[in-house]
């Protein structure tokens, strides 16, 4: 595997806390001495956040579809809308 990919793997293992305590400390020390590595860690963390955010957005869309589908049932729709009258 390419060197770059190995680094991505190491960052991933660090972020997912898959290393033992000693491994974590060694990685943190490397991060402190290498701004370039620290920057890469920050980007990778952001990507994971972004993926989660997008996944939630997808779920909201799926739930909206289910809501629209349920509201086509006139009895159910009336039950819901009557609450707000």
């Amino acid at each position, binding site marked *: *595997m390419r060197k*770059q*990919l190995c680094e*991505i*793997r190491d960052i*991933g293992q660090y972020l997912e806390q898959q290393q033992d305590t000693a491994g974590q400390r060694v990685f943190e020390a490397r991060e402190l001495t290498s701004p370039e590595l620290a*920057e*890469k860690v920050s*980007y*990778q963390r*952001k*990507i*994971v*956040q*972004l*993926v*989660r*955010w*997008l*996944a*939630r957005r*997808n*779920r*909201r869309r*799926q*739930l*909206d579809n*289910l*809501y629209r589908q*349920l509201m086509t049932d006139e009895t*159910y729709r009336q*039950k*819901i*809308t009557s*609450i*707000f009258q």
Partner: protein
Amino acid sequence: MTMHNDPIFESVYRDTLPKVARMVHRMGGDLDTAKDIFHDAVIIYLEKKQQNTSSIASDQAYIMGIARILCLRRLKDDHQYVALPSSEDDYGIPADFYDPPPVAQPVINFLKSAGRKCLQLLQAFYYDKLPMAEIAQTLQYKTQHVATVQKYKCLEKIREQVKQTQHEEAAL
């Protein structure tokens, strides 16, 4: 219980929505607010289920509990005097739940166009927390190793884009 074509999920959804709607109405919210709060509560509930960190005795009661907290939070934003109950910690609503995306919109668009399969792979791993062997099988990678390397390649590809966008933002 899953979301996709699951009759149990649909039945919980169908039964819980009116209850949440009544609660939101009592607190002064409208139907759209009720729907949004309910959907957010369902998403948080599904995440908790996935993590298996808390024992959920009743699906409906749990969703209602989260919805109540979300509703109070929203009211708190509107009227500063509403105090949040201490029971909020029981539900552990993710701190980043409502935050805007950490990077700009162009990157979100890129992430989508980075390849549907890339996004599916990252989502399955980082959000659905599925084991790599299962991801490889579902997304039809030859082996678990191939899927894992592909995950690194996807991260590399997206990272370059995030980097570029951030540099462009800094230059503005």
